[in-house]
């Protein structure tokens, strides 16, 4: 078997205190392209499963020390190992063992003497089920990642990518920032476009939209660079916050630097517009700091 095939092979842990039976079962599994490892007692089995969980366990019921039932019950009660299929190997006439096996959570049974066709058929069936379950689990995880990405994109409209990542990363945690309304000291920066009314009087509406988009792009880029959160864009007004939703070092200074950048970056645009439209424009900015309530307010929809 090549190294790659070996890594992808279905891995079976054979637990049997009879070395000959263990060797026999392992040989049959290997002939079917599976990887088989043998352990001869319950404690070694538990250790092996906890450190390197196999894809399936063939477990002898009658072993000295910890019985197969006990191992099965323990593994099926642990979250990390409950989904590993377990086939209990019992005596042919041992109905009582089968009942106990069902009670302990076994997925299937094999009778001794073990017939190779039966072993292969049962293991293959469980392998298919196990692989389907793994496939469904990986699809569920992929869907979860996709859902978080969609949420992150939504947040990216209001917060810098770094903040959006942090918000999504915190989702579902007990300290989720939006889970409970709370007070925080927030710095608000309010900006509007001076000369906007005159500009709209003299400029065709399609061109006004282009100009507003250019203006908001400059301002929101500056806001993101300073990790501000955008609260509102309306008409020519922009409202952003600092120290929200996460605490920031010196939010007032950040807001001041952000305002300076907005002014600096907008200056050449204002000059170009004045030349083009004969209207003087500029950015008016106000900054305010104070106690604010943070949380999800309003309808969940």
């Amino acid at each position, binding site marked *: 078997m090549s190294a790659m095939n070996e890594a992808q092979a279905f891995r079976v842990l054979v637990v049997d205190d*009879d*070395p*000959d*039976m263990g*060797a*026999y079962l392992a*040989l049959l599994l290997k*002939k079917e392209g599976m990887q088989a490892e043998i352990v001869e007692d319950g404690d070694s089995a538990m250790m092996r499963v906890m450190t390197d969980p196999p894809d399936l366990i063939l477990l002898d019921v*009658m072993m*000295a020390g910890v019985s197969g039932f006990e191992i099965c019950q323990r593994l099926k009660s642990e979250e990390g190992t409950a989904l590993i299929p377990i086939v209990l*190997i019992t*005596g042919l006439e041992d109905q009582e063992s089968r009942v106990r096996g069902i009670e302990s959570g076994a997925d299937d049974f094999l009778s*001794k*003497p*073990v017939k*190779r066709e039966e072993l292969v058929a049962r293991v293959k069936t469980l392998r298919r089920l196990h692989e389907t379950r793994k496939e469904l689990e990986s699809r569920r995880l992929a869907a979860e990642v996709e859902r978080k990405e969609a949420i992150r994109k939504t947040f990216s409209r209001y917060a810098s990518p770094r903040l959006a990542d942090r918000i999504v990363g915190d989702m579902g945690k007990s300290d989720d920032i939006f889970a409970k309304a709370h007070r925080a000291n927030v710095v608000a920066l309010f900006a509007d476009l001076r000369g906007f009314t005159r500009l709209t009087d003299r400029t065709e509406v399609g061109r006004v939209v282009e100009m507003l988009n250019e203006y908001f792009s400059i301002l929101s880029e500056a806001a993101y660079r300073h990790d501000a959160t955008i609260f509102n864009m309306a008409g020519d007004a922009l409202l952003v916050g600092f120290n929200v939703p996460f605490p920031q070092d010196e939010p007032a200074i950040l807001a001041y630097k952000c305002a300076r950048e907005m002014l600096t970056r907008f200056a050449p645009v204002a000059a170009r517009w004045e030349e083009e439209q004969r209207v003087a424009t500029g950015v008016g900015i106000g900054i305010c700091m104070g106690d604010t309530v943070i949380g999800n307010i309003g309808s969940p929809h």
Partner: protein
Amino acid sequence: MNYTAVVAKDLEDLIPVFIKNRNKEIDLLRAALGSGDYEQLKQISHRMKGVGNSYGFAPISKFGKTIEDGARTSDNAAIEACIGDYVDYLQKVQVVYE
């Protein structure tokens, strides 16, 4: 009486160790019978029942059944006779691989 065990070809590599372990089993059975350890006899015979037929040595499973029944009823004579048959079988069995 001669015995033949028809064993699957792919088990050939396992057979020398299998036979060696069966001979060790004889010693364990005798020791358990000598000390009247019926629990040990039940354990060994239960194992014989499972492994014999699986490998293609059906009589070993049969001996296992007889010894297990003897251990349940504390029938030392039956167990002793069966161990004798087991020894005889192991000495004479010819393995044929198919």
